[in-house]
């Protein structure tokens, strides 16, 4: 499905990013596995891809830094020769009630989850515009649509990503580049593992399909949005949340 395509997945050392990297590789894409701090885990993702006969390499970059991102994109385009698919997945949480939220917590989440998407998107527009094709897929979150107490910073960043997705889609559509967002609901990852059982039970009650999502549920949608088959879809946000927000 993606043979001959080159992809970069940010925050791909674990969780949803890891599942996306594995899936894109399974479909034949060469994958750059970006990580910020988890070098060992990123290496394991690369090894897993290679053991399955795929092509991948790990690359460190802090997406909140434009210099770091520029260097990463340069290395990826040099190594692969082109870049067809960018998946902006890197994200962090610093949950707190609004009244207790520190400026640092706000800034950290906005810088990685929103500015990081801006930095990476800006850096890939040049190669993608030149080749007159490209797929940019942003991992937003369902809470960016619905809101969520205790996550003012995260929600603001994710809502921002949805707006950024629409604008980027409009700006780049004439150059054959599509930009879409995926909004995961409650997915089993390290990030949601830290929530306590009460919170999880409450969330389960709000999910019509009555189960948590898996990283693979997200990866399957990203695979589709990265493929030629999604060529007439741009600026959209696909909710993958078991029906939680309709």
């Amino acid at each position, binding site marked *: 499905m993606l043979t001959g395509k080159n992809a970069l997945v940010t925050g791909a050392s674990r969780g949803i990013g890891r599942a996306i990297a594995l899936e894109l590789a399974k479909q034949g894409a060469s994958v750059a596995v970006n990580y910020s701090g988890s070098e060992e885990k990123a290496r394991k993702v690369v090894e897993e891809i290679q053991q399955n006969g795929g092509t991948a390499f790990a690359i460190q970059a802090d997406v909140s830094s434009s210099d770091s991102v520029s260097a990463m994109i340069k290395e990826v385009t040099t190594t692969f020769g082109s870049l067809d698919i960018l998946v902006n997945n890197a994200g962090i949480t610093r949950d707190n009630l609004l009244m207790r939220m520190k400026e640092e917590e706000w800034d950290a989440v906005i810088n990685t989850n929103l500015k990081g998407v801006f930095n990476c998107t800006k850096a890939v527009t*040049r190669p993608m515009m*030149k080749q007159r094709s490209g797929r940019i897929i942003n991992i937003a979150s369902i809470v960016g649509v619905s809101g969520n107490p205790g996550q003012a910073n995260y929600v603001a960043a994710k809502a921002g990503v949805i707006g950024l997705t629409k604008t980027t889609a409009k*700006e780049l559509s*004439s150059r054959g580049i599509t930009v879409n967002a995926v909004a995961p609901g409650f997915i089993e990852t390290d990030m949601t593992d830290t929530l306590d059982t009460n919170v999880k039970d409450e969330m389960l009650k709000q999910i019509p399909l009555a189960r948590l999502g898996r990283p693979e549920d997200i990866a399957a949608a990203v695979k589709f949005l990265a493929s030629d088959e999604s060529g007439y879809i741009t600026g959209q946000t696909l909710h993958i949340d078991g029906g939680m927000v309709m």
Partner: protein
Amino acid sequence: MAEIQDRITKIIVDRLGVDEEEVKNESSFKEDLGADSLDVVELVMELEDEFDMEISDEDAEKIATVGDVVNYINNQQ
């Protein structure tokens, strides 16, 4: 000088799909040559590659006519 002008003209003709005769120093990219904002950004990218230089965003914003480009490149060379 003439050589630089020719290279610039060629890029503009290729990128904007206009006739060479239309590319005059006083031609405005947006008003005379039918370019939109994104076309101008792409043009700047091509010029950077062609002349192996970096054009800052501040300078790029000032580019409105073919003559602006010719002067800019000549001053930088």
